[in-house]
């Protein structure tokens, strides 16, 4: 991307209250930080990961390159609220859905059919593959498989 295009992009994004990123892995992690710790363990090169803002009211990210989304699942009840609100806000930006290559979801098997439900919902709505599922902050096997998988794509 040329500098001019880049600047233009930033301007238009700013007009919509969006923060541009060319990260290959965009993720949400709540204050409990499980997903964040999983991403840290992936040890991807700097700039390849971007975390969605914790506060829903803050400007969300705008992807400028193809990326994979990683999200935890909020469990329980009848499955309502399984996708974190911050992720919904991010995916409500049409350009983000266009560049989305796939989704990785975390969860807890204790939630029965709610296990990794956020991943199923996003895969269905955005017509992308649910690439991988893991529990809580992931085991070392999960880390290896996701790291190698992402390297294979990007």
């Amino acid at each position, binding site marked *: 991307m040329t500098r001019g295009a880049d600047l233009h992009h930033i301007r238009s994004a700013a007009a919509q209250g969006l923060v541009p990123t060319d990260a290959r892995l965009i993720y949400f992690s709540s204050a409990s930080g499980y997903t964040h710790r999983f991403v840290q363990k992936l040890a991807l090169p700097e700039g390849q990961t971007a975390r969605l803002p914790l506060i829903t009211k803050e400007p969300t990210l705008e992807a400028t390159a193809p990326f994979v989304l990683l999200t935890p699942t909020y469990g329980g009840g009848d499955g309502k609220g399984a996708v974190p609100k911050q992720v919904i806000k991010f995916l409500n930006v049409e350009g983000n859905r266009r560049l989305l290559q796939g989704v990785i979801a975390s969860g807890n098997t204790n939630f*029965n059919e*709610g*296990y990794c439900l956020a991943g*199923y919902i996003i895969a269905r*709505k955005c017509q992308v593959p649910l690439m*991988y599922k893991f*529990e809580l902050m992931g085991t070392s096997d999960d880390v290896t498989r996701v790291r190698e*998988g*992402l390297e294979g794509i990007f």
Partner: protein
Amino acid sequence: MTDQQHHLVEAINWNRIQDEKDVEVWNRLVNNFWLPEKVPLSNDAQSWSNLTDDERLLSMRVFTGLTLLDTIQGTVGAVSLIPDAITPHEEAVYTNIAFMESVHAKSYSSIFSTLASTKEIDEAFRWSRENTNLQRKAALIVERYDGEDPYKKKIASTLLESFLFYSGFYWPMYLSSHARLTNTADLIRLIIRDEAVHGYYIGYKYQRNLETLPEEKREELKAFTYELLFELYENEVEYTHALYDSVGLAEDVKKFLHYNANKALMNLGYEAMFPAETTNVNPAILSALSPNSDENHDFFSGSGSSYVIGKAENTEDDDWDF
């Protein structure tokens, strides 16, 4: 003056929140609320009568053991966390947890009264008082609840919620995977779901509290966690053999224990302890726990696994709004 200050009580204000997690978890617990009366346990009567004598005895003991843990958590454990709460909303969440644990404890009595005779019930409760391993696990946890260390209370509580229940939970999941006592299993799944939120929340609060501690104390608590888990684990192995040898399932149960011990550690922010080759839980059990768990979604491996890709569906922005 000091006497007056001592009696000053602060009213809880849900419009001024210090930790959003308190509200999130409160809402989740409220949305998950249930009572045993909504589960048609009596539909299991036929299935119950088809169990062997060994299987019925095992069921009675498993559920009495679980009752004991829920009783501790409801009347001692969750309540003991209240004085150390940082926010008033955290206190409120513990009262919700305490009540729900009492609902769980009562649920087992619903199972008993629906399926078993008074004699069987009384014998099971006598067994729970006399079983060394069951009493030992209770003692190891209550010792921390009675102690002074707020961190160790949360460690013990998370290990109870996320590890100690599972030697018992295995059995209804096993029966359910063979289409037996399926209504009872539905009730147990509701308990399993609640315990996940409880373990997650108490573990989260533990980690938040840790942030203020010096590195040395944090390391000490980490070592304590692994030591206590191992002590509990050794006892669980004996308990598992005592319960499950009669039906030949002890080795299978132990894998389930390893798997859940790792999850309990993660809830406290620590790395898994048991290696993958010891946590390969019987897929039928995992599937009884969560029907989505045994599908292979490893898109990356390219092993021809089926991954979910939705059929064409126009996504409107409105679709996402809740």
